[in-house]
């Protein structure tokens, strides 16, 4: 049995994967595409929080909100300029896949030019360790878990108790019927892309205090959250949460026993799962 510290680290990773996978599923359920640039919005969010905290001296929770707003706005812009055109009838799914993949290079290049390639840490935010008897947990890791919980509760409220959330849920079920009832499907798409990207950005900002921020930090979480999405089942929000938690914990626990090959084991596990249950754990069976 791995020590408790490993489980805590796994939980921290889970929080990140879960938030990102949640945003990805939201975008998928409305736009019908996978946003391959998700990891780069995560990276940009980390940078916004870093500069807000270190350069502007804004308190950490507030800078998280700022990063959500800034990167969410950027995501909306991307939806409006690129994705809306490339998902219009006549385009195949490949055009938008290639475009969002090209944006990966675009944003990484932009971040590398603008912010430099060095690792940037935010260790000064919330220093200190909580003593739990046999082991200690740093306040930063607790902050990651707490903020993720807050974000997820906020998402629950937005999706289930507000009018916007109702419009989003209606659009994801029946876009045509929703537009007949006065929902502007075009705007729901833009808003959902904003929310999805804001979630990724906040995940990046939250992890910035534990790990460091650099232009290429988005690549592995992107692949991991993609796997979390397919484990849970494309289009299932519960699935995204469960998949994210599973992946984060498994990754950390397997890495404890077999180090480098943990990712191989993890990928194998996902492949086997997909072959046994192609629609994922919580996905609807294919019609």
């Amino acid at each position, binding site marked *: 049995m791995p020590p408790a510290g490993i489980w805590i680290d796994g939980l921290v990773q889970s929080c990140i994967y879960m938030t990102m996978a949640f945003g990805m599923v939201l975008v998928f359920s409305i736009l019908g595409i*996978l946003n391959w640039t998700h990891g780069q919005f995560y990276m940009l969010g980390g940078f916004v929080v870093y500069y807000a905290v270190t350069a502007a001296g804004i308190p950490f929770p507030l800078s998280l909100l700022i990063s959500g707003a800034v990167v969410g706005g950027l995501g909306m812009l991307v939806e409006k*300029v*690129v994705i809306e*055109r*490339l998902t219009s*009838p*006549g*385009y*195949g*799914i*490949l*055009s938008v*896949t*290639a*475009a969002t*993949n*090209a*944006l*990966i*290079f*675009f*944003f*990484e*290049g*932009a971040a*590398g*030019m603008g912010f430099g*390639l060095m690792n940037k840490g935010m260790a000064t935010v919330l220093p200190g360790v909580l003593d739990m008897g046999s082991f200690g947990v740093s306040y930063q890791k607790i902050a990651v878990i707490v903020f993720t919980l807050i974000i997820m509760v906020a998402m629950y409220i937005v999706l289930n108790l507000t009018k916007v959330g109702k419009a989003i849920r209606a659009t994801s079920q029946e876009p045509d019927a929703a537009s007949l009832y006065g929902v502007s499907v075009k705007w729901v798409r833009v808003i959902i892309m904003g929310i999805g990207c804001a979630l990724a950005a906040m995940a990046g900002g939250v992890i910035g205090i534990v790990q460091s921020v650099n*232009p290429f930090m988005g*690549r592995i979480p992107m*692949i991991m959250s*993609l*796997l979390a999405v*397919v484990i849970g089942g*494309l289009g299932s929000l519960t699935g995204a949460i469960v998949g994210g938690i599973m992946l984060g914990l498994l990754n950390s626990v397997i890495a404890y026993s077999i180090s*480098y*090959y943990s*990712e*191989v084991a993890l*990928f*194998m596990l*996902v*492949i086997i799962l*997909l*072959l046994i249950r*192609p629609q994922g754990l919580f996905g609807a069976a294919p019609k």
Partner: protein
Amino acid sequence: MIIGRYYIDHKSVVPKIVIGALIALVAIFPLFTTNMVTLSIIILSGIWAIAVMGFLLILRTGQFSLGQAAFMAIGGYVSAILTVKMGMSYWPSFVAAGIISGVIAFIIGIVVLRAGGIYFSIITIAFGEIVRIVAMNWESVTQGASGILTHAPESLTVGNLEINFAASVVPYYYFMLLLVTVSALFYWQIDRTRIGGTFRSVAANPVLAEHLGINLMKHRLIAFTVAGLFTGLAGAYYVTFLSVMNPLIFDLWKSVQIMMMTIVGGMGSIVGGPIIGATLLYTLGIYLSRVPIPNIQYLVFGGVVVLLLLVLPKGTGLVDQWGKLWRRVFGEPEDFQMPGEEGMDEE
């Protein structure tokens, strides 16, 4: 997935003699310049074009694989390990690289092609990552991140002409042309005969195709295996030309680039599109990497690809514009209508 509808065939617009002249120009190109840099750009673009054709062949069956670079890595590692570690001469190891890569594609295909669509893409990503991680950490065989240094292929003797690969880059150029020609002919033959039509029907409507008695799995597997074989050969040749193999040469981002080359080049022609896309994007990447500002190359590369996708008309690539350009410059043949154009304007 809408793929099958936009194969616009412009072959009848551009005279065959123009294409023939272009090919002849490429064939005698080393007469004009033996500049190492220029020739290596063409050689490497040609190698990428082979991989892109493989991607497009798999795409013809409606699946898109994001693990094609992994097959190049397998081919590269097989040839590097056989020549450097086991002392085999290059040419048998080159053939072995293709065969092993094809066999691995076949085995992987049996397993992962059962999950179609986006799941297939994600599993192939996972497969590519597995290959990379294993190559990175299996130090006794692959020498980890530092990589394997390979040497030039042995000289070949054809008649009384000795082809010495160690002396200059020109033999590499002609072998690349041979490799591209052979694989292009193979892919083209598959694409234009009955089996290519079957591939398209599998992509366009799997349910109907299955009811017509087409074995979906079999055809997807054929495409995946053939693509794996040629991609492995391309990888083996790429590695010999660079004379080094390490896990970073063929990572996930190379698979992503293969996909971008396909889309930008155009899916209308299985040979023309990949060659145009691979040459343009690879050359763009090389010239950008000379710009002294760090990271601007990624920014411009990504930006150019997105712009091209936005500017090009619905779902077409550069190869589909080739005929349009020709008509604009040299006038329109009488009563010419592109096949399939009627239906496209309605949407």
